[in-house]
């Protein structure tokens, strides 16, 4: 699998995701600077976390209009998969690659913690190595991860199975009264990640790339990258 990592001024998890990709593919991904109008063929495009363009105007808004995103959007339309993590998720949502939008956390605080996620389906490029309903533990680190979509959009993405991950408790409880631990940011329906309609683009706020080796305390994110390698190799 040949991966390309898109790098913006202010990206800061590009190195982390590049390392995770190298770990599972055995080769360094192509790093693509934001001004690039074109780049080498890639089987997977990754939009990493950070604070692109200083999060000016709205987080992800400026990056969504950068030259490289026009090319990412063009390739995504042709079916090239996109993994959008954290600020990458915000960028992909702003670029219209994914439904909804990420807002300021409901409690207004930056949250940096391990969270539990429920895998909604194993029927995707990104989650084939997980079981539907499986609970995984990965970290989040963001101040604007509060997922929002209007009722119509929510009903549609629910019906089409476009919800990828939901925040849950350690034993997998998503519904019912939730503490801050289970829903770290106030996201509607506890949504932590979504797909586009074709399920070739996935955005999520948590950082699977920071849960790929024992040293991290969790290796639950590794299966996501291994699943991609299996599907795209």
């Amino acid at each position, binding site marked *: 699998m040949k991966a390309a990592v898109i790098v913006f001024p202010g990206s800061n998890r590009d190195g982390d995701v590049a390392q995770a990709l190298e770990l599972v593919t055995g080769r360094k991904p192509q790093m693509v600077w934001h001004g690039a109008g074109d780049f080498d063929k890639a089987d997977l495009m990754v939009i990493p976390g950070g604070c692109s363009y200083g999060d000016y105007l709205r987080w992800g808004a400026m990056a969504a209009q950068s030259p490289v995103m026009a090319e990412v959007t063009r390739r995504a339309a042709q079916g090239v998969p996109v993994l959008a993590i954290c600020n990458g998720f915000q960028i992909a949502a*702003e670029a219209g690659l994914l439904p909804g939008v990420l*807002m300021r956390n409901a409690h207004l605080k930056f949250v940096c913690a391990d969270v539990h996620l429920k895998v909604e389906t194993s029927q995707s490029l990104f989650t084939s190595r997980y079981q539907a309903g499986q609970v995984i533990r990965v970290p989040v680190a963001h101040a604007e991860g509060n997922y929002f979509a209007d009722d119509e959009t929510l009903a549609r993405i629910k019906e089409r199975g476009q919800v990828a991950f939901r925040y849950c408790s350690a034993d997998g409880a998503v519904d019912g009264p939730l503490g801050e631990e289970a829903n770290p940011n106030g996201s509607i329906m506890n949504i932590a990640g979504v797909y586009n309609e074709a399920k070739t683009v996935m955005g999520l706020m948590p950082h699977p790339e920071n849960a790929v080796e024992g040293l991290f305390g969790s290796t639950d994110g590794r299966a996501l990258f291994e699943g991609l390698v299996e599907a795209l190799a």
Partner: protein
Amino acid sequence: MKARVHVTLKNGVLDPQGKAIAHSLNRLGFAEVGDVRQGKYIELELTESDTAKAKARLEDMCRKLLANTVIENYSIELVGR
């Protein structure tokens, strides 16, 4: 000419910053303050002199960049020199 653009959250969209502002004002003794909604004010200098054309371009700017219409409304005001 100059344009003033206000970007505000749509009704029904939770505004935690507005809530925090209301809370702080209440705590400072401004008990009369109820709901607070906050937003952005953007001032733009334009070279366009035709009002209708300027307005159409500004609409485009708002939809493409200045506002995220999933959660935000915008209003445009043009001011002559």
